[in-house]
Structure formats: C-alpha cells, structure tokens
C-alpha cells in the first residue's frame, strides 16, 4: 500500500513540475537574434572574458546593440574585426589598430605540484597531465585566456610569447611612409 501511494505521489509531482517547465519554456523564451548568432559564430568561443563581457555571446549581443566596438575581442584581433565589419556592412579604419599581443601559458616544471587545478579550468583542454604529475600546456590548443593563471596555487603558470619557428615566422610590416603621404 505504502509503495503504491509513494509511487503515485512522486509521479504526480513529476508531471506537475514537467508541465510548469514547459510553460516556463514557452513564455520565458528569449528571442534569439540572427545577427547575434552570426557574430557569435565568428568569435573564438573560448568564453575567456578578455572583452570585459562574461563570454562570447554577451559580447556578440553588445556589438549587435551597438554597445561595444567591433574590435572588442582581443584574441580575435584585426582579422575578426574585419570579418565583423564585412558582416555588419560597416567600414572600419584599422590603420591605427594595435594588434593585441598573443601570449600562451607555460608551466614551469620546477614549481608545478601537479594539483590539477589548471587542468580543470582550461576551457580548451590545453593542459595535459595527471594528479601529482607535472602538467604541460599544448601550445597549439592554448587560447591565452589566462584562466589557469588565476587558479594556480604556486604561480608556476606564466604567460609567454609563443615560440617563433620557421613555420610561423612572418615578414614584418614595412615602416610607415613619411608624413604627408597621400592615403
């Protein structure tokens, strides 16, 4: 008897709650803006917060509302700004744009205790290692979000310039022309 009543009451509870959820979903649904979707799709998606927003979507929302400039995302750099400009049909002058310096995390092996905290926060799984073992950062996967820096108890994680190799070496931009040159 007890069993039956327990089952019945739990089932009713479940049904009622489910129905409430359905209603909530219907009435509280946020209309998604297609422009925001498109902007977000272009963004790096690491939710790193370097833009000052809690993640890529809020940043995209802010651009769509005109509350943030299209150069808002530091990891995206001028390449992303140019894509945004094309998408939004605006023209931008990037001649004075300073490309943000891209840094990646590096574990110094002397002080890493293998606590796994960095490993747990890294949004891209760029940190490899197991408990009580020295961790290392896979340079190709690190986005430079610095989340790991914040949680490391021994400050053994530091941001470094990525190593220049023959593969990623590039010609520098020529120095600007003398003053008075027509644009």
């Amino acid at each position: 008897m007890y069993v039956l009543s327990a089952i019945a009451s739990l089932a009713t509870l479940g049904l009622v709650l489910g129905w409430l959820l359905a209603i909530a979903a219907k009435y509280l649904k946020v209309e998604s803006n297609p422009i925001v979707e498109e902007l977000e799709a272009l963004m790096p998606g690491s939710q790193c917060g370097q833009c000052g927003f809690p993640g890529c979507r809020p940043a995209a929302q802010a651009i769509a509302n005109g509350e943030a400039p299209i150069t808002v995302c530091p990891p995206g750099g001028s390449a992303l700004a140019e894509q945004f400009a094309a998408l939004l049909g605006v023209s931008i002058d990037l001649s004075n744009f300073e490309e943000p310096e891209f840094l990646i995390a590096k574990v110094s092996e002397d002080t890493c205790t293998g606590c796994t905290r960095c490993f747990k926060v890294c949004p891209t799984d760029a940190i490899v290692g197991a408990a009580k073992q020295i961790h290392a950062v896979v340079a190709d996967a690190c986005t430079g979000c610095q989340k790991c820096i914040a949680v490391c108890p021994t400050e053994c994680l530091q941001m470094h310039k990525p190593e220049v190799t023959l593969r990623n070496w590039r010609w520098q931009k020529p120095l600007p022309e003398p003053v008075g040159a027509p644009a």
Partner: protein
Amino acid sequence: MISLMQSFRIRGGVHPDPRKTATTDLSISSDFPLPKKLYIPLQQHVGKPAEPVVRVGDYVYKGQLLAHSQGMISAPVHAPSSGIISDIADYPAPHPSALPIRTVFMETDGKDVWQLLKPPTDPFGLSAEEISLRVGAAGVVGMGGATFPAAVKLNLGRKNKISTLLINGGECEPYLTCDDRLMQESADGIIDGIRIMLHGMETPQAIVGIEDNKPAAFRAMKKAAADFRQIEVRQVPTHYPMGWDRQLIRYLTGKEVPADGRATDVGVLMHNVATAYAIHKAIRHNRPLVDRVVTIAGGAAGSPGNIWVPIGTLISELLDFCRVDRPRMARLVMGGPMMGDALPIAELPVVKATSGILALTQDEITRGSEQACIRCARCISACPAGLLPVDMANRIRSNQLESAVDIGLKDCISCGSCSYVCPSNIPLVHYFKYAAGELAARQQAQHKSEQTKKLIEERNKRIERIEKQKAEEAARELAAKVAKYSADQAEQVL
C-alpha cells in the same frame, strides 16, 4: 616585326642591370677545398622534412643516404662527402630569420670516397615509373630555387599527359651565371637529362628557352641538341622575370595559363637546366644530388666565380674562398638580388636551392629614401601578373588585407619588379610578402579557432556526461534507499 610580336608575348617586367660579366666567362671551379664540417639541413625542399636513417657516430660514404623522404611530397638527403656523423641537432637555416632547423652535422675525413656506385645505367631501358622513383631516391629537387621535388613533378607530367616540357635556361636574375656556365660546359649532360625527363614523363617534345644575353650557352646547347629532333633550343629576349613559368610558357608556346590554373592545364611543365643536369647524373651515373654550382658574386667579392660546392658547406667558407672583403659587404644575399633572401649571418649552410651567394656593397644596395607615391603608375606597367601594386600596397598599409586580396594579392609572385621601378622607393614587394604571411597566419588562427570551438564542445560534452552520470548515480542511490525503506515498512506491516 619580331619586337612587335615580342611585346605581345611578354607582359610587364623590367630590365635590371645584368651585372653578369664578372663571372660569365670563368669556367666552373672544382678547386674549392672540402670543408672539415658540413651542416646538412633535413629540409631543403618543399614538403615534409626528411627523417634521418643514420646515427651520431656512424661513418658514411659520399652519396650514402642520410635521411629518407617522408610522405608524398618530400625528398631524401645524402652525404655530400665521406666522414663521421657528429650530431643531429638544430642549426640555423639559410633563411632571412636564421631560425633553427633540424640538421645533420658531419665531420669529413678528407678522403671524399663514394659509396659503391652502380655502373652507368641505360635510362631508356627503364620504365617511366622507374625513372621517377630513381629521381626521387636521388633527392633531386627544382634547382632554380623552387625546390619542388623533381620526381613529384615528373609523375604530375605523366598523369596530366603533358605535351611540352619547357626547360628554363633563362637565368633572368642579375649576377647569377651558374646555369649559363653549366650550359656552356655540360650541355651534353643537360640534354641527356632532358631526354630522360621526356622519357619519364612520356612527353613527346621539349623546348629550351635561353635568354639572348647568353650566346655561348645557346650555341653549346643548340649543338648538343642537334641530334635530337624532340628537343628544340630557342632564344628568348633578356627580360626579367623571364623565368616565371607563365611568362616563358606564353612566350614559347603562345599559351596563356588561366588565372587560377596551373601550367599543367595548358599541357606544359617547366624544369630548370640545373635540374635536368642533376637528373642526368642521378639516372645515368647513379649519383644522388650532393653538390651544386653556386655563383659567388657582388661588389665585395675579390675573386667572384662559379664553384662546385658540396651541400652543407658554410657560406662563410665560400666567402673566404672568393676573397670577399667582409667590411665592405653591406648585405649578404642567397639567390638573386630580385627574389633572393638577405641573410643575417654567413655561418649558414649551402642548400640544394642555393643558386647564388651575393656579397653586395653599400653602393649596390642603396636606394634613395622612401618618398610619397606620385601615382606615376610605373609599378602597374611593370607588373608581369597584371596587378595594381600601388593600390594593393595602400590597402595593406591600412590593414585591409581582404580588400587587397580582392584586387589580386594572391596572384603576386613577389618578383619585385614593382619595387624596382618605383621612383619613390616604396618597398611595394615587402608589403606583399608581409601581407601573404599575415594572411597565412590568419588562416592558421582561423583553423585554431575552429579547433578551439571543437575542443570546448568536447569538454562541455564531457562535463555534461560526468554530471549526468553523477546525477544518475545519485538517483539510483535514492531509488535504492526508497525501495529499501518501503520494503522495511512493508515487512513491518506484514
């Protein structure tokens, strides 16, 4: 009449001072003393680096395989002399950055003994596939500077049913005379190499194009080819960049390679004369590519000339041999002055691509200071690719790379003709090189960002899965508790 026809067939380009007289009449020297140490980079070609098959401490004979090719597009490297492998480690590459590259270090024993060589082979008894295989195994790459593995190109020719093989004897860059001398001295070997290539590509005919400022080379090649009806030797006007495949194809065959196509689309493939000679040595004499002719020239060179140099020789040793006045050397260039690379130091090895080493004095490199663009459009008429250098540079200057691509940036071959003619000394080609690198970096960044998204998704899925597992476990535990409790209750009731 001829000049009218020529002007139709040649687009853009410039006439830089050839500066070849210092070396064009000197025969190729074989007197260069064998260096005590050789530095052989594992990547001297387009494609994947070679993988070492020798170990530190091994004794190797000249021509012995040091590293085998990896993957479809790659090339092996061979020991340029006999001696001991002293290390396999990073060493600065002959590149404007002098960044390190994996390199085999060799201490030569001075004996220069070849490995056991097979007796000369009759190439025409071999199948076409076998020719490609052997050319590949000998480590032959494009010797004009492109360093594309020659065997891959032969296969490409066979697959695409190429109708004409073009041989570039243009050597349009100033100062360089290594191809000129090779044609004068080893025309028979080059022609033999061309015949072997035709056989390997199953192609009926070849045309050799030689600039009309090399009459001796032209005569020698014409004579060597006299018995072979399938090989035609022709003179082409002296014009930079005549060695660009599209330019030479247009001039010699009248065919226009489509803008987004390749030479093979019009049934043509181009190889360099020095590549033909390397193939002759590889197939006829079973000798892998271990040395090459290098032109050492420039105002600071006391005794300029062409020299047979083992791959891996330090450029600094060549400079000493040619009595280069180091204090007067304002710039060291590998390749020609138009498209070559300035090197920051001289302790870098000669590689398969090293056609020239130029020790240039201040007088030879001084251009006036940069001025504002006067919109004279000279850069536009000089561009062999029909581009608008001035507009592209302006767009790049204001960081609008995509819009520079829209007006043809990707078709730029970095020939430097535009910079050469610009009266305002604007470093146009530098902008294009910068932009090309930046675009490549962006593509990598794009790829990385896609990768990042994937990684994040995977991580989120994993976290979700773990959460779900935990929740399920909790639910199961709860259910078990409830069931147990109910059972207990029921027991009590009964």
